[in-house]
């Protein structure tokens, strides 16, 4: 039932929200893994392999990148699947904390020292400042996770009205 000024009456059957089925959420989470896989694993590993094939020492191993990427992808998928539940807040905190630790790990590897193959030149490139700015994202993610956890503790369904409107 519609009201004037764009107000919409709630659906009594769904109490104003409609949660996608678990199967649907798993499928969507799986599809979301594709771009995440390219961003977190495929591109970095390809770049590292390209550098390694030309004799350039790597700042981080491809195994480490893959392991961190799988961890982040798994947590991202779990976070999406668990979005309608009270576990969403805590999983968001954990996912952001893992990103935070990953970035701190990468910062600890800065500066990247590179000996140019076939020459006697050594290049050092610092990127810590850039990643320190990037830390804003997981820090905000942790805060958001805490807020969601607090909100869910008060009323489990309050958030669902806006996250999954009917």
């Amino acid at each position: 039932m519609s009201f004037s000024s764009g107000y919409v009456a709630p659906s009594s059957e769904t109490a104003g929200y409609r949660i996608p089925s678990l199967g649907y959420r798993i499928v969507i989470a799986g599809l979301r893994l594709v771009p995440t896989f390219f961003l977190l694993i495929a591109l970095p590993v390809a770049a590292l392999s390209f550098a390694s094939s030309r004799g350039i020492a790597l700042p981080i191993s491809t195994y480490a990148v893959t392991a961190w990427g799988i961890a982040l992808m798994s947590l991202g998928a779990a976070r999406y699947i668990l979005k309608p539940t009270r576990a969403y807040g805590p999983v968001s905190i954990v996912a952001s904390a893992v990103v935070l630790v990953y970035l701190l790990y990468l910062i600890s590897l800065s500066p990247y020292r590179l000996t140019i193959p076939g020459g006697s030149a050594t290049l050092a490139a610092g990127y810590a400042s850039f990643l320190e700015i990037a830390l804003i994202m997981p820090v905000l993610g942790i805060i958001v996770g805490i807020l969601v956890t607090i909100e869910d503790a008060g009323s489990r369904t309050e958030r669902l009205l806006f996250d999954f409107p009917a």
Partner: protein
Amino acid sequence: MVPTHRRPPPIYRLARALRWISALVLVALIIFAGTVIYSAVQVAQTSAQSRGLSASFAANGTVEIGGSFTLSNPGLYPIDGFKLTARIANSSGVNLGQIGVGPTNIGAFSTGVFPIALYLPVSASGPTASLLTVDQTLRVNAWGNATYAYLFPLSIKLAENRSWGAPFEGFEASVGMPLGGGGMITLPVTVTFSNHAPVSDAGTLTFVIESAAQVDCGGGTFAIAAPPGSLYDQTQDVTLSSGCSPAGGQILSTYSNGGTAISLPPEAIP
């Protein structure tokens, strides 16, 4: 009936706002990183160049290596605090000279051109005397610092060996058998060397025959015109001063080129 289009609770709105900020930061960082990589590749492709390098004899017994150093920055971001230093040592590890550029800033879409002048001592005395007459390997150590795109500090160290070709390689001033008699003695003096330097030896070589008691017995002047890679071998007869014996003495030589005079190592007379 309860309208669902109600205002979300404050805690939800705060969380949503933070998510938006986080997403905006992510997008901004991705765009920034992408443009930095693109710009850095542009800078790397132009590469720094040393242009118009030339070597010439200069005052105070030195060879001047002059020219300019050019660094183009066609990228979107500035190169701040660019500083480059190069130090050159001879094969014995003795420091010969140093050049420096900066610190300076090179803005986006601009080119920095820096004049350089390196003076290598080639005088006949001191630890670097052999540069004039002996080919050797010079050790070049260079290091530089800069900050690219505000956030990325860079430093580079370079160490390499460069061959030095002596302008009077194997210089020898020798005397032959004395000729004449009756109080008038002439002595043939032969000067030989190879010019291994990239510049011509053009000027005069003035020599003095000095006795063991450091008395001037006579001397002369050779006209020098030795292009790079050539061998110089000339002999000249010198009339010695009456009663002056060169035995046990030495030949002192000075190369002059357009007002610049450089002493060559003395050659002993047996």
